[in-house]
């Protein structure tokens, strides 16, 4: 598992990367009440706003961690946004991306580095 500075986790699954948000991020957001997901097939560039997460407190975004194509989204999140708080590392993945080169993931933090970041 890799981590971004925006508190997303990245998990390799075959030739795809699964993206979600960390427990730390889910807790900071508070109860999630709405998730807006991208259309599968969307080409995204690193830093693009890909998803919107609305909690009882505020709205925030998930940014595309890298260039690539969104190939699958977790439609269950639209109906049950509370999954983000209940199981952020498992059932509440947001989308799967196809990258031009999986090696691009090497630049992200590992778990130890991420834990250091969040203190």
């Amino acid at each position, binding site marked *: 598992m890799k981590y971004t500075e925006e508190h997303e986790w990245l998990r390799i699954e075959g030739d795809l990367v699964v993206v979600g948000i960390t427990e730390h991020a889910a807790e900071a957001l*508070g*109860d999630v*009440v*709405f998730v*807006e997901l991208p259309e599968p097939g969307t080409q995204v560039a690193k830093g693009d706003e890909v998803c*919107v997460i*609305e909690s*009882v*407190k505020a*709205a925030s975004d998930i940014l595309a961690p890298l260039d690539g194509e969104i190939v699958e989204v977790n439609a269950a999140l*639209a109906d049950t*946004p*509370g999954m983000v*708080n209940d199981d952020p590392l498992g059932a509440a993945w947001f989308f799967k991306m196809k990258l031009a080169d999986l090696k691009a993931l090497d630049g992200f933090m590992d778990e130890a580095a991420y834990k250091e970041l969040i203190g």
Partner: protein
Amino acid sequence: MADLLRTGLYDLHLRLGAKMVPFAGYEMPVQYPMGVLKEHLHTRAAAGLFDVGHMGQVILRPKGSYEAAALALEALVPVDVLGVKPGRQRYGMFTNPQGGILDDLMFANRTDHIFVVVNAGCKDADVAHMRAHLSAACAVEYITDRALLALQGPAAETALARLVPGVAAMRFMDVGVFGWQGVELWVSRSGYTGEDGFEISLPDAVAVTFAEALLAMPEVAPVGLGARDSLRLEAGLCLYGHDIDTATSPVEANLGWAIQKARRAGGARAGGFPGAERILCELAEGPARRRVGLAPEGRAPMREGVEIYAAPEGGAPIGVISSGGFGPSVNAPVAMAYLPAGLPEGTLVYGDVRGKRLPARIAPLPFQPTTFKR
């Protein structure tokens, strides 16, 4: 969080695991480990305990007769103060000469004095305003040694009556003084959630003990400012600085119900409050814009500041959302907005959320039926 004030319950909040945030100059609990959503639902299902000790408590003690003090206060609010019977409380607002709202407040006839509760963010200005205008008729005593708790929800009566049996006989907007462990509790049957419940003023010295006695009961959980906001929003209640301010009149804010007959045109004491000309004119002819409920059709919350349009494309905004978010009890987004007066309930409008115009309908307030014990 230097320079922020703390209520007497600050240490208790920390012990309960609260997340503290700055609010109106105070360090206040926004949520406890239960979280905003569950705290909200718990309040509607059982009872929530809120620290509202940041709010201002003021006694107006008549220098002459009670009637003279009540009439003096009537010069600051478009409300029938004189008609409030002993042991009863009423909602009101201080208005400015332009007919805008300086603050909203609760005041009670406590027989030999008037007890006033005002918003935390406005309290210093409110006290100065009252001292400047009421001092001939009454002493304005700003109370700084008493805490204020709110216990709200269907189990509030059961819980509070275990400590103070007399409160069970109170009705909505009654006030009374009760003894508890040798101190005076000033209790009102009111609140800011749309639920039955109480607000309890008590000496700082016993506030933690009293709060802990309530929290030890199975019905009672501590509830923070986050859920207080979603509860009042579902109940259609205004938040000062958001839904009402110095530029909104009580009539625009749909608070005309708080202006009794005695203060309206043709009433026994018509006018005679700041901004009377505009406010009475708006009561007679209707305001240009009005606060309404707005129910987004989708699941995306529409928050404060979202601009409202009449059509899915083109045109200028016709209004703006003053408060909005997710309503846990109605399980949908809810909002209040200022829109041109006269648009009927059910009217379809569009809120600009992140550059997309999403549909919403004008909806009756409150979103959640109130459960006051009348």
